[in-house]
């Protein structure tokens, strides 16, 4: 059953079902990542804002959603708020990941040297231009590696959608293996699919890092390569 006896037939026979599961996972992953980044940016920016109220609200959000399990959050939206399965899964993933993302983005924003912002002030650069031309480009280079980690975490966490009957990769493979008893084959392929999605994110992040490389900024590994 282990090597040499790997049954490809069961994979090929159920390909349409598997692809359907993959599609749901991909949608969940892409939407989740986009919303998490957007939400995380807003909350991260609020966290470092001068307004006490905004900063405290953002802190409260981060504390609540970072310190509770993902499954509890998903169940809360599903059973507690009575959301549709897909919406509940997406909401849980987004609240959980955006709390982490907010912390990553806060650290990125705070890594921009105060002196450079003062220099921009001294040149008469407007606050909006200061954000778009100095803070964001620098912060983005710093947060790229930890951010791609969060994106990959979210991708793998989509498997939790299985618990609330979303038809994702894990769900499809679970039901198929219960029917065919080909547990080994099916779960190896499931793992491979998750790996491939994560690889794509990792490679994209790697290329972005190289493309945006500036001497003296960003991660050390890239610096050594040049």
């Amino acid at each position: 059953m282990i090597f040499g006896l790997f049954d490809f037939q069961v994979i090929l026979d159920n390909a349409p079902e598997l692809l359907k599961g993959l599609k749901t996972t991909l949608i969940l992953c892409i939407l989740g990542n986009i919303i998490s980044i957007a939400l995380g940016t807003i909350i991260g920016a609020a966290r470092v804002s001068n307004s006490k109220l905004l900063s405290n609200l953002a802190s409260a959000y981060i504390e609540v959603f970072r310190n509770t399990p993902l499954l509890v959050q998903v169940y809360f939206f599903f059973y507690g708020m009575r959301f549709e399965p897909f919406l509940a899964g997406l909401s849980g993933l987004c609240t959980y990941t955006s709390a982490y993302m907010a912390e990553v983005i806060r650290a990125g924003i705070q890594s921009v040297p105060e002196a450079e912002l003062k220099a921009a002030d001294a040149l008469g650069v407007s606050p909006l231009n200061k954000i778009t031309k100095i803070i964001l480009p620098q912060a983005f280079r710093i947060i790229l590696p930890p951010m791609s980690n969060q994106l990959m975490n979210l991708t793998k966490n989509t498997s939790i959608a299985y618990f609330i009957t979303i038809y994702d990769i894990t769900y499809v493979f679970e039901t198929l293996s219960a029917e065919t008893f080909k547990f080994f084959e099916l779960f190896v392929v499931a793992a491979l699919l998750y790996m491939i999605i994560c690889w794509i994110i990792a490679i994209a992040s790697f290329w972005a890092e190289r493309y945006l490389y500036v001497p003296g900024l960003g991660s050390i590994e890239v610096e050594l390569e040049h």
Partner: protein
Amino acid sequence: MLLEDKFNLKSFGLNLIIRYNFFLKEQPSLLKKTITARRVINTVMIKLEQVNKYYGDLHVLKDITLEFNKGQVTVIIGPSGSGKSTMLYCINRIEKVDSGKILINDMDIFSPSVDISKIRSDIGLVFQNYSLFSHLSVLDNITLAPTTVRKLTKENAEEMAYELLKKVKLEDKVYCYPSQLSGGQQQRIAIIRSLAMEPDALMLDEPTNNLDVDMLKEMLDIIKDLSSMKGMTLIITTHELNFAAEVGDRLIFMHDGKIIEDSTPKEVLFNPQNELTKKFLNQRLDGRFY
């Protein structure tokens, strides 16, 4: 004590004269140019009226009343923590004052109706630690403010940047990033980044810090060029007394947030009136601390 003071000051004066002569021999044409071309116009550009500034409990600026004339080169000396830098920050409104007024061309910069962006682009400020934007190349560092604040086209701004870079002999560093430049090079880039805004006045916070003797002379040339060619109003803080003597029309000694002496460099350095000034000059002279 008094005798010792006198002796030290004398040897200090001697030192200064030697340095002067050395400089004259080295670049006689430059000095001549400076002497003939420098003209101080007696119109007030920057005016401080009883300015007080606190950092928490610390009283940094104590009732400062000062005027800076157009085209004048003012050098401010004084020990660390005497409020020199803070005063420059206040004139640029990087720091707020707690009481008093700062007028630039008769406009109160702290009144809410004032366009601070305009004032800041008229009065450049170069920081002690250069503070170049680390993610931008030298060229982008220089053109960022002209394109976003003065709304110049990219071509015009870059043309001006090249011209300025040529003046400070750094035209081969256009595409370098700040981390690839030496301290002195970063310093010069920071100065021309401010000059690209074509300001009427320029404030330099410790431009001589961390510069070796060769670099010091280059910095001297740049500053003399600014004052003589463009007639720019300059306010410079420094620890280098020789440098102060050579570039300044006027020398101010600050101590503990107060103006102690305010006269010509010759008067302040050779004939100081206040005990604090004498003490400070002595320290500078032989490196002893009291």
